[in-house]
C-alpha cells in the first residue's frame, strides 16, 4: 500500500462521508455547548428522522496539554495538574500519580499506615462526590430535576470537608509524594462520622426516588446494552465494565494501598430491570458503589480514631523527598478511579527529577470511545440517556 505523505487521507475520507449522505439523512451537531454532553463534547449525528445511524465524536475542546506540561516540571509540581484531569475526583487522580512515583522510588512500603488510611478516606469521600454528580446529572438528562438538587446538596458536605482538610474546594493537591500536605484537621474524624450518619438515610431516599422509579426504568432499562466482550475490547473499565457483569475492580485485583485490609464488595450489573449492561445497570452499579464507599469510610474512621490515632509528633511530610531522584526506567501504574482505570506511564531520566515522558490513560477517554458502537439505530432521545450513563468528564477525555 502506498502511504500518502501528507497523512490527510483519513481526514478527506471523513469529509467525503459527510458530503455523500443520502437525501433521507441529515447531519446534526450536538454540542460542544449542549448541556447533556456534560462538558465540551461535540457529537456529529448522521440521522434518518428520529433514528441515529452513526455518531462521530469530536473531542479536544478542553485539551490542556497535560503530557507536555508534565515533561517540563518535577513530579511534585505535576500533582496539581493531575487534579485538573478528572476534576470531580481530584484526590483519586493524585493518589494514582503519587503511587507510581513512590513505587519507582521504592518507598511505597514505608508510608505510615495513618497516611495510607487518610488517603483512602479522602479518596472514597471523593468517589462518593463523583458518583453523586453522575447520578444527579443523569437524572437531569432523563428529565428528573429533584435528584440533581438532592445529590448536589449532599455533595456539598463532602466538598466542605475536603476543603477543610486541603484548603481547596475541588482541586486539592492534598496527597503528596511520600505523604500528605497536612494531617487531617482536628475533629475531622468526628465530623466525617456525623456526615456518614446523616448521609445513610439520604441515600435510601435517593434510591427510592430514582432506582425504582417506573419512568426512570422505562427510559434506561434495555437501552444502550453493552455486552461484556465489547466492553473489554473497547477498554471500558470501572462501573461501565462492572455493569456488563465483569467483577473487575483494581482496588481488589491490584490490592494497592490499604485496600486489602478493608472489607467491601464489588457490585456488578445483573440486568434486574432489563438486560445486563444496560443504562439502568450502569446507574445501579454507581448507587451500590456509593454504599460500599460508605462502608470503607466507616472502617477507615474506626482505625483512624483507635489504633492509628493522631499523635503530637506525627509528621505526614516525614517521607516527602526533597528531590525525587530516579534512575532511568519506565513504569505503568494503574488505580481504580470513580470512572475506571486511571493509568500513568512514566519514562524517567537518569539523575533528573523531571520525567522524560508522562502518558495519562484516562478512563473516560476509553469509556467514551465505545459510544459510536452503542448508538447504532437508536432514537436521539436515547442517545442522551446512553451518554449520561457513561459518565464522562471532559477534563480527562481531553487532558
Amino acid at each position, binding site marked *: 500500500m502506498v502511504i500518502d505523505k501528507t*497523512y490527510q487521507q483519513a481526514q478527506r475520507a471523513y469529509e467525503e462521508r459527510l458530503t455523500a449522505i443520502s437525501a433521507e439523512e441529515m447531519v446534526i451537531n450536538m454540542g460542544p455547548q449542549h448541556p447533556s454532553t456534560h462538558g465540551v463534547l461535540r457529537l456529529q449525528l448522521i440521522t434518518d428522522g428520529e433514528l441515529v445511524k452513526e455518531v462521530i465524536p469530536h473531542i479536544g475542546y478542553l485539551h490542556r496539554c497535560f503530557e507536555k506540561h508534565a515533561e517540563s516540571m518535577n513530579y511534585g509540581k505535576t500533582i496539581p495538574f493531575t487534579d485538573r484531569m478528572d476534576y470531580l475526583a481530584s484526590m483519586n487522580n493524585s493518589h494514582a500519580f503519587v503511587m507510581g512515583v513512590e513505587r519507582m522510588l521504592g518507598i511505597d512500603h514505608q508510608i505510615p499506615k495513618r497516611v495510607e488510611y487518610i488517603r483512602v478516606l479522602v479518596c472514597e469521600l471523593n468517589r462518593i462526590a463523583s458518583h453523586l454528580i453522575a447520578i444527579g446529572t443523569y437524572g437531569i438528562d432523563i428529565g428528573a430535576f429533584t435528584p440533581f438538587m438532592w445529590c448536589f446538596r449532599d455533595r456539598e458536605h463532602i466538598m466542605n470537608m475536603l476543603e477543610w482538610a486541603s484548603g481547596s474546594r475541588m482541586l486539592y493537591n492534598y496527597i503528596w509524594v511520600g505523604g500528605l500536605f497536612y494531617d487531617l484537621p482536628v475533629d475531622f474524624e468526628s465530623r466525617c462520622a456525623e456526615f456518614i450518619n446523616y448521609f445513610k438515610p439520604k441515600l435510601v431516599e435517593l434510591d427510592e426516588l430514582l432506582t425504582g422509579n417506573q419512568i426512570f426504568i422505562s427510559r434506561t432499562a434495555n437501552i444502550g446494552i453493552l455486552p461484556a466482550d465489547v466492553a473489554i*475490547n*473497547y477498554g471500558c473499565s470501572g462501573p461501565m465494565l462492572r455493569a456488563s457483569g*465483569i467483577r473487575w475492580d483494581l482496588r481488589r485485583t491490584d490490592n494497592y494501598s490499604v485496600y486489602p485490609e478493608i472489607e467491601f464488595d464489588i457490585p456488578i450489573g445483573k440486568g434486574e430491570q432489563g438486560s445486563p449492561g444496560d443504562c439502568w445497570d450502569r446507574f445501579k452499579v454507581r448507587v451500590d458503589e456509593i454504599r460500599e464507599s460508605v462502608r470503607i469510610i466507616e472502617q477507615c474512621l474506626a482505625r483512624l480514631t483507635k489504633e492509628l490515632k493522631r499523635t503530637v509528633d506525627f509528621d505526614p511530610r516525614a517521607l516527602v523527598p526533597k528531590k525525587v531522584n530516579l534512575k532511568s526506567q519506565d513504569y505503568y501504574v494503574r488505580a481504580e478511579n470513580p470512572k475506571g482505570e486511571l493509568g500513568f506511564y512514566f519514562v524517567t531520566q537518569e539523575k533528573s527529577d523531571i520525567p522524560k515522558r508522562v*502518558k495519562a490513560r484516562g478512563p473516560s477517554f476509553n469509556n467514551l470511545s465505545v459510544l459510536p458502537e452503542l448508538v447504532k439505530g437508536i432514537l436521539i432521545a436515547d442517545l442522551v440517556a446512553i451518554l449520561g450513563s457513561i459518565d464522562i468528564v471532559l477534563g480527562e477525555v481531553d487532558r
Partner: protein
Amino acid sequence: MEELIIRVKTLLAAQFGDEAATIESSGLQPALVVESLLLRQVCLFLRDHVDTYFDFLSCISAVDDGVPAGTFTVVYHLASIPYNYQLTLKVIVPNDRRLDNLPSVPSVSSVWRTADWHEREAFDLMGIYFEGHPDLRRILLPEDWEGYPLRKDYEDAEMYHGIPIK
C-alpha cells in the same frame, strides 16, 4: 512478573521464531520488545492464546527517545482479565524526523478497539503513522494543526489562524 514474561517469550519464540521478541528490563516492569512487522500477529496470538488471554489493552503510549537516539518507541500495556496478568510490549522504530516520513507501526485496532483512539492520539501528538488504521485523523488538536507537539524537537508556531500563540 519476571516469570510471566519469560513464559510469554517462550510462547512467542515457539510460534514466531527466536527473534520475534526480546526481553528488556530497566526497572520494575520488564518489557518485551517486539519486531515491528510481527506486531499485529503477536498481539492477536497473545489475545487468543489459552494461557495468556491478554484481552484488555490498557494504554498505548508513544515515546520520543530523543533527537540523538533517532528512534521512537510505542509502548503497549496489556492486561489479562481472566488471569490478572499485566504485560508491556514495545516496538522501537528508527526515524529521521522528517514530517513527510513519519515512523510507521502496524495498527492493532483490529485486535483491540481500544487502540483506535489511542493510536489516533499517538498520531496526533507524536506523529506515529499506524498502518491499517481505519480512521487516522487528529483527535485532540484541530485538523489543520501543524507538527506533532510531544516530539522533543517540536517548536511552537508563532500564529494559528491569525492568533498569536507563542
